[in-house]
């Protein structure tokens, strides 16, 4: 199989397993990594969802007794953090990983081992964060008590609890004495590193690994959005990294960055956090925008309306996204000039966003729309995202935002963009690319049931939050008295949340059943436009039997269809034979293909961060420092081993 044995492989043999658990741990195949990202992200989605349900049980009626105040703090923090950092971001990474090489016609990403490293760092970061449930302590603030009068929280309350943005000095050593916020700061640091590495990797891949003829302006919009997201990550993560280091040092080494009693600055934290935080919200939404920009044309059977405008608007959103962070700080006492400037800047973001929405509508206009499940989710995305975008613009009006900020109106806004936007987009993508993954179709019947339940549940859950907020229901409140008359709508909200939960159950049933017994998809089940559908389903290990030669935007479509005088698509007479030809060369590559060789080191380098994390938190205990040193040594030796690993062996021949 392997050609002449490589002379350099004396000390560092590379692993060879192709099946079994070892093959997953050592894999560097972007498809396997993508699948692992997907499943683990979904697992965290379930956890975050359960936390949300507990929150909603507490608020279902006045004077809820399900949680105490400390537990409520922990639950909403963990819910938000999980959804942002452990679900939406990694599920984006799952899509990028699986699809990026397929959509640009590449064998793999630019750096397959680095790709595996990102994944393992993410996994261990997630484990680390969640281990705070087991090991974390809250403890009372110096000279005070936990909210509600308790002195220490139950296990449910003993996890990160400073809100997902960990405002200082509340989350600093003075007011949060236990260890949970160390778990928070260090855990996010680890997760951020994972994303930074994948950002570099994806940028290099998109810029350098495109197939012949895949010019930048022939790339699918999804790839463009991946590129924008990667740049947002690249430039925003270092900022939050510094901010998290500062908190960690405040808590571990006694630095005074945010200690307002001794010259520290609370507003500095807000700047640094939101300098990252606003680009972050676009990191969450742009993948979904990319997904629907692929699905809408396919199911409208028309090209994307104004492709260059959509690409340009996406880039503009990314660029402007760096200039609006202080709209999260309108009530923090920044100067009126800053308020006006950031209010205006925020309004301008609505322009490229609006452009995209009009382009999506233009794509559907006069199209022959097929209402498949992925199409329904895409339509749901557009509708709900518009609502969330509009309430977003209302926050950009400063005096209005003073009324809205820290109320349920804000909660409504970001759930319309995140749940209605990001998550509907993600489900559209899951239904759409499921055949690519498995070679089978998901059940349309269950899919549509899932969509309608989720659509109704979503609006019942987050719609009434608008009015609750305007009535004055405070965000992050753990209970409310009956006299406020919040009870009815809150009950509706809770019912909505359980409807969403049931729709997710249906999705899981659909997924597991279809994976085993779904209808065979065959080649190109959606009659799609982009080149990832020009190869067999499920994707062969080597992706493309023959490296693609891209002739145009929507290359695959133009191999199947011509246009008549009115611009209507006419199926070419040779379309079926083209498909058959692509199928054959996909299944039986005419020439041997080189694939990257697996490696042990990404796993160990990732695992070392667990030791480093615990080592830092417990460095004052006897075993903490040795653990920290062990972690650093494991990391260094993994990386050195990695760099000594023979690169020549990275390529191994596969014969079909």
């Amino acid at each position, binding site marked *: 199989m392997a050609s002449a044995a490589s002379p350099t492989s004396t000390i560092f043999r590379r692993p060879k397993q192709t099946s079994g658990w070892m093959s997953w741990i050592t894999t560097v195949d972007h498809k396997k990594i993508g699948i692992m990202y997907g499943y683990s992200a979904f697992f965290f989605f379930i956890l975050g969802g359960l936390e949300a349900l507990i929150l909603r049980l507490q608020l279902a009626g006045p004077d809820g007794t399900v949680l105490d105040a400390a537990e409520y703090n922990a639950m909403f923090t963990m819910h938000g953090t999980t959804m942002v950092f452990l679900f939406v971001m990694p599920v984006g990474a799952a899509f990028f990983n699986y699809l990026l090489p397929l959509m640009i016609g590449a064998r793999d990403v630019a750096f397959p081992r680095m790709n595996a490293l990102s994944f393992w760092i993410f996994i261990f970061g997630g484990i680390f964060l969640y281990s705070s449930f087991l090991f974390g302590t809250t403890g009372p603030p110096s000279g005070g008590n936990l909210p509600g009068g308790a002195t220490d929280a139950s296990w449910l309350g003993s996890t990160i609890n400073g809100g997902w943005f960990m405002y200082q000095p509340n989350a600093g050593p003075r007011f949060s004495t236990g260890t949970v916020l160390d778990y928070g700061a260090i855990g996010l640091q680890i997760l951020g590193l994972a994303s930074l590495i994948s950002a570099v990797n994806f940028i290099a891949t998109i810029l350098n690994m495109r197939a012949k003829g895949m010019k930048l302006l022939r790339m699918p919009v999804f790839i463009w959005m991946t590129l924008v997201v990667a740049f947002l990550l690249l430039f925003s993560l270092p900022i939050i990294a510094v901010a998290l280091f500062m908190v960690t040092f405040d808590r571990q080494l006694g630095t005074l960055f945010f200690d307002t009693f001794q010259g520290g600055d609370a507003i500095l934290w807000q*700047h640094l956090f939101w300098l990252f935080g606003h680009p972050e919200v676009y990191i969450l939404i742009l993948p979904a925008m990319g997904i629907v920009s692929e699905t809408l044309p396919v199911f409208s059977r028309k090209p994307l309306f104004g492709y260059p405008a959509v690409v340009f608007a996406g880039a503009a959103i990314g660029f402007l996204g*760096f200039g609006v962070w202080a709209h999260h700080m309108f009530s923090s006492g*920044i*100067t009126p000039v800053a308020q006006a400037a950031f209010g205006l800047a925020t309004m301008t973001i609505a322009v490229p966003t609006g452009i995209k929405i009009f382009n999506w509508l233009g794509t559907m206009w006069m199209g022959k729309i097929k209402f498949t499940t992925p199409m329904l989710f895409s339509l749901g995305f557009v509708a709900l995202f518009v609502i969330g975008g509009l309430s977003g613009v209302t926050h950009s009006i400063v005096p209005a935002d003073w009324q809205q900020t820290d109320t349920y109106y804000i909660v409504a806004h970001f759930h319309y963009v995140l749940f209605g936007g990001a998550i509907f987009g993600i489900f559209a993508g899951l239904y759409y690319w499921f055949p690519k993954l498995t070679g089978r179709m998901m059940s349309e019947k269950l899919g549509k049931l899932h969509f309608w339940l989720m659509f109704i549940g979503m609006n019942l859950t987050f719609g009434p939050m608008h009015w609750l907020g305007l009535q004055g229901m405070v965000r992050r409140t753990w209970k409310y008295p009956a006299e406020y008359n919040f009870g009815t709508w809150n009950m509706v909200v809770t019912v909505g949340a359980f409807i969403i939960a049931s729709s997710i159950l249906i999705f899981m049933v659909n997924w597991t059943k279809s994976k085993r017994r779904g209808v065979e998809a065959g080649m190109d089940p959606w009659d799609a436009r982009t080149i990832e559908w020009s190869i067999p389903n499920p994707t062969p290990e080597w992706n493309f039997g023959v490296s693609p030669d891209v002739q145009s935007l929507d290359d695959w479509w133009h191999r199947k269809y011509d246009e008549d005088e009115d611009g209507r698509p006419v199926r070419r007479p040779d379309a079926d034979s083209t498909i058959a030809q692509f199928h054959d060369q996909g299944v039986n590559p005419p020439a041997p293909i080189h694939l990257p060789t697996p490696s042990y080191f990404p796993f160990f380098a990732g695992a070392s961060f667990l030791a480093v994390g615990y080592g830092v938190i417990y460095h004052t205990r006897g075993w903490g420092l040795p653990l920290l040193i062990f972690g650093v040594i494991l990391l260094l030796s993994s990386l050195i081993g990695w760099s000594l690993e023979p690169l020549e062996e990275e390529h191994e021949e596969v014969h079909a």
Partner: protein
Amino acid sequence: MAEAQTKAQPSPKQYVQIAVLLAILTAVEVALYYIEQAGVSGRIVYPTLIILAILKFIIVVAFYMHIRYEKGIIARFFTVGFFGALMLYTVVLGTFGVLTAMSG
């Protein structure tokens, strides 16, 4: 890999000359620090110091990091990163009033 670079790169001798230049600039910087100590206004010294630092920065990036000899895409990344950071953090310091305090 060297073929990708179009223009001829400096010779070792030129690298040494560049280093000498850098060393001289550093010496001037340190001298300026003492000139300011001796009572010359910071309004003259500080801008000069910043210009000197920018010069050194550009020289290292252009010649030692070979950005002059590379494809334009690399210079673009670098400038976006640099000026992006400069702009964002200037605004942050501006909202704190630090810049007005420093120039005043």
